């Protein structure tokens, strides 16, 4: 009995000490988190790997699909296991206000005056501009949809539709389909009647909608013929055209654009390396390489100026594309996201 007890106690002690030693194991490498897919593959080639070569230190990359709660949970759990994260405009504003991110030292990044003003934030540095636009297969539809009224018209364009799951963007698209002018979009959406109107319009299309969450899904649905028109990230469409020789088309008029930012999670283990990385990824010569691989717009004006014209025409930041597009109203969503998302979820689950 005594021996057994001794052995058990010794075993427990051994276990506990290994756990302690393991707890102090090697420091984690710089962890960079993007949105996956073609965009992250391109970022890995032009930012992550060259930066790691330059600094002589390895890095880890992960991907996510957004969600403010994910970051919040990491912070509440103690020290976060991510360092640099690519976040959407709304997550940038929320997290910066809530103290989830480190304040960036723009003197160290050094290219503040080369950046477009909206790409500079005290907590974030612009990653790229992206659009959510209508996409369709040009081989299946000769004369494709021109606007959101067409998107809603299932007699003119038979087949299902795919939209990004969530209230954001879809309420805007629904109002546009209901004839609201882009300039009045958020004025209408700010009223209760406007929200009712948007949901009523979504009701019309509901049986024909296939919802997507990851950016790769709508392109797959278009390729397999499961849906005939989808709201897609613009870079995915040109990406699949290049990779698989497809003839997918984008509809720039009434597309919506926003900018993503790099942030550093507060108290991150590698926050100095993280800032060095952001500085590296913000330099004009490095940013200039990204659009050659994936069609997103660069926040560094010097980089944007060097893009070859045939690529430039595919970017959200190309003047002709920008002119017809609608910027996402981040402030509106910061205030109303919770209430509208609750209503959207209730609507969706009915």
């Amino acid at each position: 009995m005594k021996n057994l007890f001794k052995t058990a106690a010794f075993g427990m002690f051994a276990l506990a000490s290994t756990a302690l030693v393991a707890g102090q194991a090697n420091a984690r490498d710089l962890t960079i988190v993007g949105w996956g897919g073609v965009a992250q593959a391109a970022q890995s080639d032009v930012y992550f790997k060259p930066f790691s070569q330059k600094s002589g230190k390895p890095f880890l990359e992960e991907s996510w699909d957004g969600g403010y709660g994910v970051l919040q949970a990491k912070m509440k759990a103690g020290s976060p296991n991510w360092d640099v994260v690519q976040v959407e405009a709304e997550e940038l504003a929320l997290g910066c206000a809530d103290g989830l991110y480190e304040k960036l030292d723009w003197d160290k990044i050094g290219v503040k005056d080369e950046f477009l003003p909206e790409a500079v934030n005290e907590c974030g540095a612009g990653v790229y501009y992206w659009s959510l636009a209508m996409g369709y297969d040009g081989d299946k539809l000769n004369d494709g949809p021109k606007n959101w009224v067409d998107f809603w018209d299932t007699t003119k364009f038979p087949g299902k539709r795919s939209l990004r799951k969530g209230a954001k963007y879809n309420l805007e698209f629904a109002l546009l389909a209901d004839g609201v002018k882009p300039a009045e979009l958020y004025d209408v959406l700010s009223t209760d009647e406007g929200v009712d109107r948007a949901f009523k319009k979504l009701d019309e299309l509901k049986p024909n909608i296939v919802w997507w969450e990851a950016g790769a899904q709508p392109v797959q649905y278009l390729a397999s013929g499961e849906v005939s028109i989808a709201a897609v990230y613009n870079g995915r469409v040109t990406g699949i055209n290049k990779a698989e020789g497809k003839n997918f088309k984008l509809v720039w008029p009434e597309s919506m654009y926003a900018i993503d930012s790099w942030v550093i999670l507060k108290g991150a283990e590698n926050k100095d390396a993280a800032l060095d990385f952001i500085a590296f990824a913000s330099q004009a010569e490095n940013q200039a390489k990204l659009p050659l691989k994936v069609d997103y717009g660069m926040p560094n004006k010097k980089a944007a100026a060097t893009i070859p014209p045939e690529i430039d025409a595919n970017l959200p930041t190309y003047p002709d594309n920008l002119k017809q597009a609608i910027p996402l109203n981040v402030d509106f969503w910061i205030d109303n996201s919770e209430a509208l998302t609750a209503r959207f979820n209730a609507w969706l689950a009915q």
Partner: protein
Amino acid sequence: MSGKSFLQKSGPLLLVAPLFLFICLFFIWPLGSVLTQSVSDNAVARLLPETAKVASSWDGQSAPAEGLQAAFVTDLRAATDEQAVGDMVRRLNSAQSGFRTLMSKTLKAVQDKPEGPIDLVALDRKWSQPQYWKAITDALSPTTDRYLLAAVDLMRNDAGEIISQPPKQTINVAIFGRTFWISATVTIFCVLLGYPYALLITVATGWKKQALLAAVLLPLWTSLLVRTAAWFILLQEQGLINSALMDLNIIADPLALIFNRTGVIIAMTHVSLPMMVLPIYSVLLTIPKNLMPAAASLGAHPLRAFVRVLLPLSFGGIAAGSLLVFMSAIGYYITPALIGGAGDQMISSFIAFHAQNSGNWGMASALGIVLLVVTIILYAVYERLATQRERSA
């Protein structure tokens, strides 16, 4: 000597100590913190002590008095922890949309002017509207029932009475109903498929028995995600089932098997089946083989013998299997997410949404607590029925 007797006495206790610690650490403590999370509401109260002192002097109707505004400004000046301020703003915005931008404007003004009074109404006319101040004064109590009420589609009105929420905003009750309905359906299908299968294993011998058992055990050893993904491939529009049926000219158009309730039930039934088959099988093994021939020798029709002899004796297995399947089905998340449509999501996906996407841990906890309570009630009913049966048997 006394040392030895101490060891003898405490030996068993020490042996169970790790288990006891484990249960405390990984079961009781998390459960307690979920419970606390669902009723605690100190995000606002802990930062606004001065405001809390004068809040009762305000009638809640008119534009708030200067004293309240001044106390609020004093509190904001004293609040330096950014994350705590963030928690407060998020809590206020969830009660009254528009607080986010209002507060970032106000906090900036407070930072710019570290002393002296600030005219909040001049800063933003939202501050002249009572509903924003009402949101603050309502949030000053350290505990709240708003999450628990919201979890069952209720809320308090301005007078503090409990009323139902506007139907457009929430459908938690319907989702709970759906969760239990899907779980019950899956349990029934599992009994209908699992019982005959378990009976088959019991009577089979040799390699046939091994093969039948392996067919149950192999899926059990495979990851849930893999099994669900396999069903995705089988059920999809161009999937194996549809293409086989179409090649055989049984159907002309593909059946809708995926992104709907049918697919969810099929996949969940398959995934849960081993948990039904194994308990029934283990009970059937203990029933003497000669009972059925004995019943037949007394002239009972095989069906009558089954209903009067075998079924009552194996009831314990069915009950245990049903309980296992039903309880685990309630918590399903991955299978409905991959195979189901928007109308087939169960309560777990809403809990995950609140925990991961909206960062509303209070709401996520409240939904979890309601699920736990309802499940415990159902279990209590089951226990009662089972003991009554035992007594009457």
